């Protein structure tokens, strides 16, 4: 469910809103009214910018007009301390009628992070900067892979990396022949597990390259990998800790660095693994989003 539902906007709400934003620019108030009255999400960046601007010292305000303003860092560039952040949060909550937990603020570094965070919050999507936990059932639903060829059991997705675990059960079908007398988890399957986590990242993260569009899970394929090293023999009952970090994203290619450890020991490393991906057609997006949410509810 989205965290925020657009409720009917009453005259009393408008009074509160006008009071909350009394020291913001007229454009900020206008944008906030547009969002609150019409549910128009495109008004949100202007609201956020206006609220942040209101709390800046006069000499810092012009920086918000810089070409690369979205990249400005809240603390280092804008001089926003943690108390000011709380002031911004309270005003944002009152203005957009939502509530924000302290935990959610920890990873917000730049104006861009704030925009994305609020946007996700309003759309009910997981925030890119907040770790998103993906359990085994959700992995199964999300991934194009299935039994007996799915090697992720539990995953956490962050903006800059994804982590997952897989416990080698010993009953994997290929262990019968790999090898005849000693079961050893194949290095090629470790590479497969890294690739699968990269697929999950593509499907679950909100990478800026996707521009909010949804990915077609039937159109993700392996294209290449470089610098593969296997460093440890993995056997039944070992728990693989798999990590991928996005390196380059440019539609239709996504490149990751990947690694596996077992109890802290290096097991495998891939300098680059590249997948190809594609978007769902725009028209069917809303429907798919809705069905996804239903499935997760």
């Amino acid at each position, binding site marked *: 469910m989205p965290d925020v539902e657009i409720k009917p906007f009453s005259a009393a709400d408008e009074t509160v809103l006008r009071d909350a934003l009394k020291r913001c620019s007229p454009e900020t108030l206008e944008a906030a009214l547009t969002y609150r009255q019409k549910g128009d999400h495109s008004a949100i960046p202007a609201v956020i910018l206006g609220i942040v601007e209101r709390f800046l010292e006069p000499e810092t305000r012009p920086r918000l007009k810089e070409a690369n303003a979205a990249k400005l860092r809240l603390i280092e560039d804008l*001089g926003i*301390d943690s*108390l000011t952040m709380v*002031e911004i949060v309270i005003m944002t909550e009152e203005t957009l009628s939502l509530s924000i937990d302290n935990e959610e603020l920890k990873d917000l570094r730049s104006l861009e992070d704030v925009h994305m965070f609020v946007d996700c919050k309003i759309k009910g999507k997981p925030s890119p900067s907040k770790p998103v936990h993906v359990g085994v059932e959700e992995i199964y639903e999300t991934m194009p892979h299935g039994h007996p060829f799915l090697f992720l059991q539990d995953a956490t997705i962050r903006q800059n990396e994804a982590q997952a675990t897989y416990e080698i059960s010993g009953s994997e079908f290929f262990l019968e022949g790999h090898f005849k007398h000693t079961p050893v988890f194949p290095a090629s399957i470790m590479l497969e597990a890294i690739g699968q986590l990269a697929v999950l990242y593509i499907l679950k993260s909100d990478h800026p390259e996707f521009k909010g569009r949804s990915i077609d899970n039937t159109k993700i394929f392996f294209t290449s990998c470089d610098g593969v090293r296997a460093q440890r023999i993995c056997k039944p009952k070992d728990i693989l800790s798999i990590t991928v970090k996005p390196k380059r994203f440019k539609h239709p290619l996504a490149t990751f660095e990947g690694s596996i450890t077992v109890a802290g020991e290096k097991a495998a490393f891939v300098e680059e693994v590249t997948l190809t991906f594609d978007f769902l057609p725009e028209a069917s997006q809303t429907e798919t989003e809705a069905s996804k949410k239903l499935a997760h509810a």
Partner: protein
Amino acid sequence: MRNVVVTGLGFITSIGNDQDTVLKNLRELNHGIGLHPGLQSDDTPSKVAGLIKDFETPGYDAEDWTYPSDYTVRREILRGLSPQGLFALCSAHQAIKDAGLSDNEVSNTQTGIYTASAGSPGCLHHHMNRMNERGVMRCYPLAIVASIAGTLSFNLVAALKILGSSCGFTSACASSGHALGYAFDEITLGRQDRMLVVGAEDGNRESIIPFAGMRALTPNSDPNTASRPFDKNRDGFVCTGGATTMILEDEETAKKRGATIYGRFNGWAQASDGHNVAISHPEGDGLSRAIELALKSAQVSAADIDYINAHATSTPIGDASEIRALQRIFNPKSGLKPAISSTKALTGHGLSLSSVMEAAFCALALKHGFMPGSANIETLDPEAEGLNVIRETQDVAPQTILSNSSGFGGANTALIFSKYGA
């Protein structure tokens, strides 16, 4: 032991927001009392207070306030202030400028700040109400630092980047006497070379009106007669807000940097009544002991005192108590006749602010060679017979001054200042 001197003053008071105006009004006995906009409801017995001019601090949204353009307060500072914080900060900037201190001379490990304020009851009430209405997590994040006793220290230490000692004092109307006294100790003990001492009060409805319920405020709404310490018909005090900053320095430190010196701070002492939570001892027991100890601390005798800035607030009991204390120390039969006045007739009673405000008046009296009169006395209280309560300003330079303060719970402070070079 090191000597302490006064090297800077800053005033945001009902009788002026700069030293020249304060000096003129003290000399000419012009009061700063008027109808207070927060005290005009029908159920308010006294509608007057000492008024701070050129500052508008309605409500508790600091960004709504206006203040003289001589001062600039950044939002990051302003957001943590109650009205008294704004007054205090402006008075501190004024005193720093007056003392000719550079940023480095204010912000170093040898410079500290002691403040006096009872906190801002109105600001606290406002924010607690808002929290109860809007939810705990929407409590204004600066609510506490703007409101509680200590608010002046929190804010001024941050705003002035103080690196030395810092602390807030709360002994009601003796608070800034304690702040001055302990700042004196800080310097004489060699812990600090320089101390800023700041007292301030909001002076708004919430900080004034509860004293009406106590029956401590005068019911008189005539600004010209409402505050009349030592008058036979006095009937309660008039409140005031504002702020005063006094800068104290080790004498050698001050001399080395060529500071202008207002006078010496020779010593201080305190003693308590152990009598009643709010009523002063009828015989002025605590205050007279504080005075004796202060004379000892300053190594002067009662005969050396030629001017006394009295605590006298214009309440029947309080003034009587101080009269008894003064008669005990400066016994008319012994021939001692120090001039006595209460400048609260002009300013109103500044509560936590009053002691440092009056100490600063004493510093002006020492530097400019005059003794301000005790205004508004129509009929001197016969109980004060034999005491030299001066009703007009005297252009006589005092050599040694005693300044008294008494607070709730019977806390009494006595401070002694003297002419520099004397």
